[in-house]
């Protein structure tokens, strides 16, 4: 039996909102979905008039919907934002090259400038070459660490005021669970923040989709016929996040509001004074944001360039021992060369 749209607009309902369970027609769903994101932007004061904002675009559903909605709301509510797309090319054949085509399509559809930065030009390495050297066990560490810094580098290059990322409510709830599972209090403190960074020498990152459910993002993209790329990365999935995700999906089936409840719980957590809280500073080598000296990206890059790809994997002390050993070997070889030259 056909059901009327809950908003009493006179239309028949054509979908059930995953977030609230309400039966709505397509037009009312679009209006509700967009109004929520607008409310998040306004109530959390994510942007200021005249700002230049980079939309981190991977070509996936989240960043595609984010770019579409930000453009739409910018025009509808006259935010006065200068929006640009920023993409990172990790150099993964069969994955990133295809998804970048989607981003280029978004550029044309939304009439937004696009900047693509590659690992190759930033670090001198593509992910394909890194995987060839390190294998598939730790490759996601390199990709994730480099990507974070690459976005910062790209944002600096474009001279933007903030970077908008496509993290949705499911991602944030998953991250809360994941950080509890691994006891990472530093990240647990900040993972629910809608804005991170933004101090004098860092560019802030904002999450306008913080309260949007993944299922609704997919639904919105589907009914709006947005073009997005949905192939999984060809490399390995992440273990902790996989467990947290499977657990969250089970919980969501029983009570859909659990996603928002977990985010709320994460925000409410306070930590004892005795718990270490690393201060985020600036890497003295590359000048980008980091809570370690040197930053993880610099250590990983040094490892690749030295031919010691495992340098940044595992404990810092282990890495230092590896460097010391290599330096010792190099010194020995140099001394041997000197002796040879004497003859």
């Amino acid at each position: 039996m056909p059901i009327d749209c809950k908003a009493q607009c006179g239309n028949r309902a054509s979908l059930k909102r995953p977030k609230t369970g309400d039966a709505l027609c397509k037009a009312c769903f679009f209006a509700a979905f967009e109004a929520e994101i607008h409310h998040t932007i306004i109530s959390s004061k994510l942007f200021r008039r005249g700002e230049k904002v980079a939309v981190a675009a991977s070509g996936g559903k989240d960043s595609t919907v984010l770019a579409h909605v930000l453009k739409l709301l910018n025009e509808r509510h006259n935010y006065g934002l200068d929006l640009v797309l920023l993409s990172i090319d990790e150099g993964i054949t069969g994955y990133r090259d295809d998804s970048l085509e989607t981003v280029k399509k978004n550029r044309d559809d939304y009439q937004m400038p696009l900047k693509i930065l590659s690992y190759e030009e930033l670090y001198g390495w593509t992910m394909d070459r890194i995987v060839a050297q390190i294998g598939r066990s730790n490759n996601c560490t390199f990709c994730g660490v480099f990507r974070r810094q690459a976005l910062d580098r790209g944002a600096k290059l474009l001279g933007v005021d903030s970077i908008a990322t496509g993290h949705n409510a499911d991602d944030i709830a998953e991250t809360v669970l994941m950080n509890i599972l691994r006891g990472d209090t530093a990240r647990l403190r900040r993972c629910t923040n809608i804005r991170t960074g933004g101090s004098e020498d860092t560019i802030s990152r904002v999450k306008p989709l913080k309260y949007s459910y993944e299922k609704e993002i997919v639904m919105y993209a589907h009914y709006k016929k947005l073009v997005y790329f949905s192939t999984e990365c060809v490399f390995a999935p992440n273990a902790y996040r996989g467990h947290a995700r499977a657990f969250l999906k089970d919980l969501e089936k029983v009570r859909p509001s659990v996603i928002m409840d977990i985010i709320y719980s994460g925000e409410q957590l306070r930590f004892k004074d005795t718990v270490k809280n690393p201060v985020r500073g600036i890497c003295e080598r590359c000048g980008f944001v980091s809570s370690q000296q040197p930053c993880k990206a610099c250590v990983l890059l040094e490892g690749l360039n030295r031919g010691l790809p495992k340098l940044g994997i595992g404990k810092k002390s282990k890495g230092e021992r590896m460097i010391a050993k290599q330096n010792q070997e190099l010194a020995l070889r140099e001394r041997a060369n000197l002796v040879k030259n004497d003859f």
Partner: protein
Amino acid sequence: MCSIGEDDFGDEGATHTMLSGSSATGSVLNAGSCNKCGLNSQKLYKLNFRMAECCECFLKYVRHKFRASLGAAKVLPRNSEVLLVIDGSSESLVLLDMLHSAQTLNTFKRLHCNVRVLYIDARCPAIKEENVPLKELNELQRRYSPFEFYIIQLDREPQSVQLLKDYTVRPLDSITNEFNSSTSRQDYAQQKRKFLIGGVAVQLGCSYVFEPSISPSLATQLLTSVALGRGSSLALDVALLDDRLQGDVKLLRPLKDLTEQEVQFYVHSQDLKDFRLNDTSHLTGDSLQSLTRDFVNNLQLNYASTVSTVFRTGDKIAAKHNSQGIPASYCVFCQSLLDTDISDTLLAIEYSRAVSEIGVALQLEHSSDVLEKRVVERLNERDDMCHACRNIQADLNSGTLI
């Protein structure tokens, strides 16, 4: 797409994969000499990270853990009146046995407190009256004399607590049939149970309640509280001391540092027999609580070190305190400290419900004022309750929680 971001990496780089391994890797060995005291023994207990030891040395070690948790925190004054809540589970029998043995030591080492034992008859409708474990409770009372045993039904008022010898089993009114979801039903029962324990403690003149939770059960509780939206009060749900009971009664969890393996060995060494009634709550449908329990049980089997990490995360979380100068307000149902500010997330939850009711009319100018008003009104409707208790209230078919 790839979903790995900055949050997926620990400070040590790639240490972001769970370490596999079961918790139950200790074993009971047959005759041999104890690595601690050197004496020959019929049974040796080999725990993870410890040498095989005889029964006496093992008991000394595990009882010391219990005493140390109380001693280090200095939370139990001399000659306190203590109410021990047992449910027939192994851990509750271990705590009973430990408390009894601590009372029989010489004056110097004796734990100076007066213990009463409470059993809450909270059987579900599927369990018949003759299955209430009165025989087992009477046996325990004989074994652990002179402790006095009390019993109460979950559906009664605290005043109706009775001595075990005077108790006759009556039909139990179901207090949880009125809920739309199994999650709310169980959350309500848990809060109600806590309320009853506090009331009984006041009735019996006890200022301390001992609850036999061990580390895996507290890890489950932590994740459950997160899923229920009880983040602001979860520190107290898993801490050694919880002061949310009525009448200034304090709830203590002195076994919080014990592992499941230690409990199993203790049960084995003292020949204890658990008699917890089978929990049939899962038959009424999946709940956040049952899914979390299954998730932690699975971790316990395959990634035991992750369970202990979760438990230790709970140790780092601080209880919320009231800001100075602002009068404290507490949830009328669970007694947790309430927020004075409106959370953006709670606002977003209400906003979602409100926008679904307006739909395309949102584009009309006047509707935004109506919307804001509706959202704030809804949030203020029950401002005497925390978010999680409001969720229970929303799942109640009729009436109110209080």
